[in-house]
């Protein structure tokens, strides 16, 4: 049997952070004179109490160290428990969300999905708005730390490529996490501040600027308006484009030593593909809008870039109702959701790096057809890729599509229509947010969906966020056998 005490111990700390974070909306509401501050204060106390109980109940002597099994359980458990506690303010605030809706909203926030069940955001109390943005932001922070520190060690879906050199060959997780985490958090905070300043300079109010900065850098996509970014000016939208693109890039590459007088991200193969891909997709969409739907060129470029970036980085901001752009836009946005951002970013989806490897794999298969006995090696960032890594990537992509199909079927089984089921499943798995169609389209809401569908989607968001295998491994028999 696995010793779950260290797992609960660390989990307690995460809840403590959440409880502290609840203080912020409480303060905001208090200064705005909203009675909701009590809800946040009480929720904070409940969360803090549970956290303390976990921490003191499971404390053991010495520094806690986690084995791989415990790390798997921790990541899954952490997301579930924080989402459950983060749902408290939603359930008891003036919005009066049902437990299902509250958990959906909290999970959507923490997984940086951005799918919302709340209608009437423009008039919602500020406490709730900042709480949603905070959830995005904390979830984004959590996911970068996980992608950098934990997933590579656990060898999830080819992430071992990104393993830090020093922490090789060890099955316990302890080493440089604090150091790396600190520098990445610093970068994350700096970018958020920059984005907030940018939004403010572009003409947003201070409160909205902070909320949107947190949601954009974390590629979360919660907004303070029902019409999302369409509510604001052109300048604001361009700032959002850059903020989202930063959120979808590898954060590790912004830290660390510069090589040849420039940050490492400029020489990164993944970043190149990322930019190329966004450029192509945005160009095609702009062309379509300009040529077919008679949009003026400037507006077409802005809207195409904005929504393509928002979809590829799985943010979920919307600058205009692209649902009205016709069949081509539907198909393109549906497919873009699967691409995802870079590894080590806050974006979801399959991730560019995996597509790169798959592309190389297909190329090698093609070469091998002509030269059956040739030996071909795949390179990534000038380093050869081991077969074991390719194997992991294959496994991940297969599981990804399998999960997508399974959850789309499950959604359709509880009575969701074909288009909503397909795009909803894709959007939840990639943590993107809006789907396609009447119900959950760009300006739509997840509120009308049946309760069962919301639970299915919430589970799928978590699966997607934790890169599938982290959760799937808990269901394998050998996990529980010693």
């Amino acid at each position, binding site marked *: 049997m696995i010793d779950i005490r260290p797992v609960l111990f660390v989990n307690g700390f995460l809840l403590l952070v959440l409880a502290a974070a609840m203080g912020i909306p409480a303060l905001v509401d208090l200064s705005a004179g909203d009675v909701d501050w009590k809800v946040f204060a009480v929720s904070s106390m409940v969360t803090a109490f549970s956290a303390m109980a976990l921490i003191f109940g499971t404390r053991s002597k010495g520094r806690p160290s986690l084995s791989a099994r415990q790390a798997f359980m921790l990541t899954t458990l952490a997301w579930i428990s924080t989402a459950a506690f983060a749902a408290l303010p939603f359930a008891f605030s003036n919005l009066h969300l049902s437990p299902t809706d509250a958990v959906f909203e909290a999970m959507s926030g923490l997984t940086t999905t951005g799918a919302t069940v709340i209608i009437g955001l423009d008039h919602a109390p500020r406490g709730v708005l900042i709480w949603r943005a905070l959830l995005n932001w904390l979830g984004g922070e959590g996911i970068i730390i996980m992608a950098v520190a934990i997933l590579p060690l656990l060898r999830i879906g080819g992430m071992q490529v990104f393993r830090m050199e020093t922490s090789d060959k060890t099955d316990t997780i302890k080493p440089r996490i604090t150091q790396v985490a600190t520098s990445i958090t610093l970068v994350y905070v700096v970018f958020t501040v920059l984005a907030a300043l940018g939004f403010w300079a572009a003409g947003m109010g201070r409160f909205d600027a902070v909320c949107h900065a947190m949601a954009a850098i974390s590629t979360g996509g919660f907004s303070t308006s029902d019409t999302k970014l369409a509510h604001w000016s052109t300048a604001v939208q361009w700032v959002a484009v850059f903020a989202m693109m930063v959120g979808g890039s590898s954060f590790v590459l912004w830290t660390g030593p510069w090589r040849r007088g420039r940050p490492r991200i400029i020489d990164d193969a993944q970043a190149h593909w990322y930019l190329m891909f966004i450029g192509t997709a945005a160009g095609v969409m702009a062309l379509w809008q300009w040529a077919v739907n008679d949009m003026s060129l400037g507006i077409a470029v802005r809207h195409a870039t904005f929504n393509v970036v928002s979809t590829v980085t799985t943010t979920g901001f919307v600058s205009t109702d692209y649902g009205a752009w016709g069949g*081509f836009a539907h198909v393109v946005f549906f497919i873009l959701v699967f691409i995802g951002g870079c590894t080590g970013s806050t974006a979801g989806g399959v991730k560019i790096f995996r597509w790169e490897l798959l592309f190389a*794999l297909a190329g090698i298969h093609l070469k091998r057809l002509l030269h059956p006995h040739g030996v071909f090696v795949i390179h990534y960032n000038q380093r050869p890729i081991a077969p074991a890594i390719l194997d992991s990537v294959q496994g991940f992509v297969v599981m990804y599509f399998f999960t997508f199909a399974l959850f789309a079927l499950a959604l359709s089984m509880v009575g969701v229509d074909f288009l909503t089921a397909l795009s909803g499943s894709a959007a939840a798995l990639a943590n993107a947010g809006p789907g396609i169609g009447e119900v959950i389209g760009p300006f739509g809401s997840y509120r009308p969906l049946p309760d069962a569908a919301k639970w299915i989607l919430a589970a799928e968001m978590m699966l997607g966020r934790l890169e599938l295998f982290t959760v799937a491994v808990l269901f394998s028999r050998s996990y529980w056998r010693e």
Partner: protein
Amino acid sequence: MIDLRPVLSTIGALVCVLAAAMWLPAVIDFRDGHEEWMVFATSSGLTLFFGLALLLGTRVTNQRRSVRQTYLSATFGLAVPGLFAALPLIYGPLQLSVTDAVFESLAGLTTTSATVIRGLDALPRGLLLWRALLGWMGGIGVVAMAIAVLPELAVGGMQMFRLEVPGPAERATSRGRRIAASILAGYCGATALLALALWVAGMSGFEALVHAMGTISTSGASTSDASIGHFDSAAITVLITFGMILGGMPFMLFFHFLRGNRKIVLRDHQLRWYFALLALGTMGVSAWLVSSRGLAPLDALRHGALTVVSVMTGTGHFTLEYGNWGGMPAAILFFLAFVGGCAGSTSGGIKVFRFQFLFTDALMQIRRLLRPHAVLIAGFNRRPIPEEVLGSVMGFLFVYALAFAMLAMSLAFLGLDFVTAMSGAASALANLGPGLGPEIGPGGSYAGLPDLAKWLLSMGMLVGRLELFTVLVLFVPAFWRQ
């Protein structure tokens, strides 16, 4: 430069076979006193002329083909007869445009049942027989290719199905001949038996023949716009269902079965999955038919089974017009269209075995996460799957997904709506036929699509039928270099 003569002579031989086949509809039309027999006779003469010219003009003594020549023969061996087979459609009473005629004839030869012709019930019998014949010949061609050619070329993991040949080369050819003979006998025998059974069940002799050909070859040729629904007979529905299941099974089993090796049929892993998927899909669709459409359970089972089998094996027969069902059945059918039948059958799609390979490998991944240093090997039919086979399969899957995405986007770009573009692309690549939605759903037709869309879909069918890489390899520069 590649020596093109053997390629041309193969194509010539295939074109000659086509010319000979044109006499059958000519004879039928002549007996019916229909003037169209002259069209078939003239087309046959023209086709024969070109066929003989190619065959005799490029005769070489050495019949051994290199790998490159095989690729060229496979691709053009399907495309060139497709053009000649369109002749009777252009000059017949239908007066189809060149685009429509080529679309129709390629759809026939690739065993896709996409059609641009409405009003089948009123058509002369010669044309109906011609459509069925195209599908039937395409079916046997595909089986021959899947058993003899693709495994040798190692396309997309097909190398797992190489015929194990013990002993020297002469025995190999004699064994190859025996296999070819028994498969041809099995194919003809199954068609004849099915035709007989359908005739007993109440079809006229001609209808029985056309449907038997359309069913065993999974090409979905019919004599009525309403397909099997026209007959409204339980016995016929069940017979057709079984025929399609047979058509989606590996035809090598005929060989083993005829040699008395019955156990191998029961032990085949691919077959188990095939039946399991069929059963699951049938259950889902039938349950939906009972609950939403209020059908009696037995009727629901009959219609559900026919629909699911027809979609999964890529046949295209139907009893109920499932194009506007929406929701759960649409999702099930959409995903099953990607799965397809077994390797070495007449059906299209990704094929069951590829999913099996990747799924077992993904399960291995999960175990490997817990035991990073264990040596775990995925197996299929009690044989280990080599690393490069998994790579091939993954490459295939990736290119399939890519082709689907590109085709769907191109179709949408031409103005098709989301459901039509997505299901049309999936349907063409899987050689299925009908899509979803009002326009190209079962009972609909592709006639209303833009011409460019028809050409794209024809390309999709061709590429899907040749397992993508056979065509793709022609575009590698190294292919043309020596």
